[in-house]
């Protein structure tokens, strides 16, 4: 999902750059406030960990394989601010040293994968946790569904950025990116949940709530973050959400964007896989596909969590040596 250089126009690149800088700044402040000094090295290590974890293969079918993104994994294990920082570090390294993601598109990519993905994922995770309670099954279910949602949200953000730049029309980008990630999200959910379950088995104390802010939530900051994400998403998704086939032109005209070469999107039929038979409007059918996908993902997440917490095979972990720094277990 890393957008290369040349796919975004100046306006989108700058706008997302500003949003990304603001979001990252908020996250840095959040980390400085909520993460004690002894856990600062952990953030760097966690970034290396996400990078290394992204390299592992999860065979899908016929030689293709999936890979972890890791936004929700980082958020569940380290907390939301640290997750933003971790994902940002990974993306910056990928951009600068591996040319994976353009330099001018860095703001946009950070927005999608280091802001939207962890924010949406963590938000849904917390929401569901409040509803399903403390036990492991509920936690795993929340993780699974949150991971799926975060992937889809990031894909929507990416599609929106491409559409706003006039590179790919929204009616193509959204079903293509969004649609594919409805499926990829399932893989992300599965991997993230398996990992969280394994950590819960091996070292349950690492999953304790100490990773979340112990202080009173700063409502001002929470609101600022929420507005940031909402604003960004609104800019990209509002034209579609308006439901009209020419919603994008309407917004473009209102905001004074000059028309790109591809000015008036003729109603090209989107990829037929994502259309429901019998439903006329392309937009409406994509919405229905999205909703159906969400419900399926919801159900699968619950199924996965239940499967992973079946009574057999859960070993209690004996108390370890705890948090003594530097003590090697051998000596």
């Amino acid at each position: 999902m890393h957008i290369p250089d040349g796919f975004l126009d100046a306006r989108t690149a700058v706008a997302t750059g500003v949003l990304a800088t603001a979001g990252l700044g908020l996250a840095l402040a959040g980390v400085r406030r909520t993460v004690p000094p002894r856990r600062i090295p952990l953030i760097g290590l966690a970034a290396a960990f996400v990078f290394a974890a992204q390299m592992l293969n999860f065979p899908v079918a016929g030689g293709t394989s999936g890979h972890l993104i890791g936004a929700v994994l980082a958020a569940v294990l380290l907390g939301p601010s640290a997750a933003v920082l971790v994902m940002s570090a990974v993306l910056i390294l990928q951009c600068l040293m591996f040319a994976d993601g353009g330099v001018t598109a860095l703001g946009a990519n950070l927005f999608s994968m280091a802001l939207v993905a962890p924010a949406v994922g963590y938000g849904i995770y917390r929401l569901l946790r409040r509803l399903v309670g403390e036990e492991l099954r509920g936690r795993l279910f929340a993780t699974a569904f949150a991971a799926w949602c975060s992937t889809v949200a990031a894909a929507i953000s990416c599609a929106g950025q491409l559409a706003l730049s006039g590179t790919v029309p929204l009616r193509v980008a959204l079903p293509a990116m969004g649609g594919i990630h409805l499926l990829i999200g399932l893989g992300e959910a599965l991997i993230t949940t398996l990992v969280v379950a394994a950590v819960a088995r091996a070292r349950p104390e690492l999953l304790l709530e100490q990773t979340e802010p112990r202080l009173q939530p700063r409502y001002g900051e929470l609101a600022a973050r929420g507005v940031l994400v909402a604003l960004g998403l609104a800019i990209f998704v509002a034209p579609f959400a308006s439901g009209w086939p020419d919603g994008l032109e309407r917004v473009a005209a209102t905001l004074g964007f000059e028309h790109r070469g591809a000015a008036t999107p003729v109603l090209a039929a989107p990829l037929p896989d994502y259309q429901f038979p019998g439903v006329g409007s392309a937009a409406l059918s994509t919405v229905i596909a999205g909703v159906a996908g969400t419900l399926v993902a919801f159900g699968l997440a619950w199924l996965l969590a239940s499967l992973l917490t079946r009574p057999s095979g859960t070993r209690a972990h004996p108390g370890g040596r705890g948090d003594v720094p530097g003590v090697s277990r051998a000596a």
Partner: protein
Amino acid sequence: MYRALLEPYQHQRSAIHRLSAGVKAGGALAFVLAIVLLPRASWTAYGTGAALLLLLAGLSRIPPTALARRLLLVEPFALGVALLSLLQPNGLMVFAATLTKSTLCLFCMVLLSGTTRFSALLRVLWRIRVPSLLVTTLALMHRYLFVLVDETGCMMRARRSRTFTRDRASAWRSSASVIAHLFVRSSERAERIYAAMCARGWKT
């Protein structure tokens, strides 16, 4: 995918390698910005840019095969998205321009990363006042990347030696458990690193 294909070439001593990291980074950024901001149909400009990059690549003495391989690794996504852009009137122009721009920028960044060490880039970031928490995170990440990748490799090999079924489910479970153990070990290592930093007087 990230087997740092260009790392072996970062220690060469060509004219390009010897330029300061700030100059190289600034130059790369300027080039990318220029290409991105050009109007879509600036074919002569693209040609000039390409010639410039080829010249620099030659001066850097990095084997062209290595550069080509790096380029081909990231092209598929660009190609895929670019193909989507065909689905509109004037699509062919958008497709061609977008692909050209992104390839040129890609080549530029590949050259940058092949001739510049990440530690040098970090110093540039530090000088331009990027927040220290971010720079520290980037530095630690880069430092321990190879350590963790090696650990992952070891663990995967150990798992595979103990797996006798070839089905996907067990492959997924073993990869997931490797990731989990990697996290646990990373946490423990982070604690020890903190201790080592304090032992040398780190003031938090």
